[in-house]
């Protein structure tokens, strides 16, 4: 059975490109583009890996990460955080809140695929 990745990102063309890429790589991909209810969607979908953008409309990726790590079904889901700002303090904050990996935009296709394989395990 294919591994399930949930991509929470608000850029439609990034969603389309990454979804295409991951689907061709054998993933089952679902997407969500709003920060407001992202935590509920994540808990409902229970992905094997979560790709979470930091800057989302409605609620920041940091808040969402803190939320899902605090309780519920996705407390331990591997999370790859995406950000357009490569600042050290963002990286430190993500790590403190429980992000598994951190990636700065723009990333390469090979980079994201390789990272997701590492996060999803064998």
């Amino acid at each position, binding site marked *: 059975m294919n591994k399930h990745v949930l991509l929470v990102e608000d*850029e439609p*063309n*990034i969603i*389309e*490109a*990454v979804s*295409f*890429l991951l689907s*061709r790589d054998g993933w089952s991909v679902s997407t969500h583009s709003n920060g407001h209810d992202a935590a509920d969607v994540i808990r409902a979908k229970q992905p094997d890996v979560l790709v979470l953008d930091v*800057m989302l409309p409605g609620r920041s990726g940091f808040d969402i990460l803190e939320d899902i790590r605090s309780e519920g079904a996705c407390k331990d889901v591997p999370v790859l955080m995406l950000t*357009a*700002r490569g600042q050290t303090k963002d990286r430190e904050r993500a790590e403190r809140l429980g992000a598994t990996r951190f990636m700065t*935009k*723009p*990333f*390469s*296709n090979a980079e994201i695929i390789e990272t997701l394989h590492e996060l999803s395990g064998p």
Partner: protein
Amino acid sequence: MRRETLTGSRIRERRLINGQKQADLARKAGISASYLNLIEHNRRRIGGKLLLDIASALGVEPMSLSEGAEAALLGALREVAAMHPVEQSELERVEEFAGRFPGWANLIETLAQRQSSLEQTVVSLTDRMTHDPQLAEALHDMLGAVTAIRSTSSILVETDKLEPEWQDRFHRNLNEDATRLTEGSQALVAYLNDETSEHQQVTTPQDEIEAFFQRHGYHFALLENGGSDTQAHDAIESMLESADDLLVSASAGAQVKRLLIRYWSDAQAFGFDVMLDEVSNVGLEPALIAAKYNLDIGLVMRRFASVPGDLLRPLLQNSPYDIAEAGIGLAVCDSSGTLTMRKPLPRFALPRFGAACPLWSLYQALSRPLVALRERSQLSGRDGAPFETLAFAAPVSAPQFGAVPLLEAHMLMIPLSASGAAQNMEPLRPIGISCRICPRGECIGRREPSILAGGV
């Protein structure tokens, strides 16, 4: 704020205006002459009845002796002392200090004001960079577009047998994102330009000098027409006065004045029409022309750089050069390599901060004085422009036994046309602007990493 301060100086000034002797005034005020002497030299504070008596003896209002700019000065000095603690015993003597050394006191106040102003500027710029929501939003949006373009273009290039409908969709996305990126970058530039004009960005004296020369196109018709020293002096002063919006710092004003005097002196030695005739006859050959007229090669190079492009272009029609509106670029440096005169070109920028590319023939000239260097170069970067550079270094003073001469080096940057660049079989020598913005990966001259990809 205490206001009895520096009154001593005022008492002394008023007494001298009145033509009164110190002993006479002291007697009228009921004090000894030696005590009045201490008061007049701000060694003793004064107030109350004694101030009224002295004012009466001087025939002035007491207020006129105890108010004024000095009070503000003392207030400012105390504020400075509060920020940079000084010995209490010395703080108590601030009035004496200001009275005895008013020039130094004013200097401290001026420097403190300058420091405060610069600190505010730093805070405001830092705040703008880190917290400006519009800037953050614009950069986030642009990086989003770049990410989408990078991912999509990789899919298009790397995916075998991509279905036509996916191809169409990704091409459409690429077009959308490229448009978004273009609009975003234009908006960002417009925003930053607005900010620049609104906030009067921090500028260096070098920026002010460059802005002044750019306003005049590096050509000064008023200084080309001969005339007496006095006329040249008047013309220079007039130009400086009309540029008070650009030349804010005293340093920039002084440097521009020195450069204009040199310009006038160069024009006297090598007239404009004669120069154009020679360029028409022999081309851009500073060494040949300098020898013919017994001039310094550096002087001839400076004169070449003063010619507007539209006058130079017709004279060089059959040359390998591609002279644009700005004409020929010029960089002049002293023995330390510091650029002392800069005329950048649109495609040959000169670094605003820090040192330039060590591969420039300008710096080779410094190590080979009196050797005229001609080189064909190409600037780093995707559309690196080809240039011919002429460089020459010479001592700035007559030789003396036992003294190592200081050198000044000149370098002309002459844009080459595409056909001109291809004329010679030898490859163009790669050069950059400065390490910080040079993308060339491996370079023997690199002294610091580049902010551009590849230039590490």
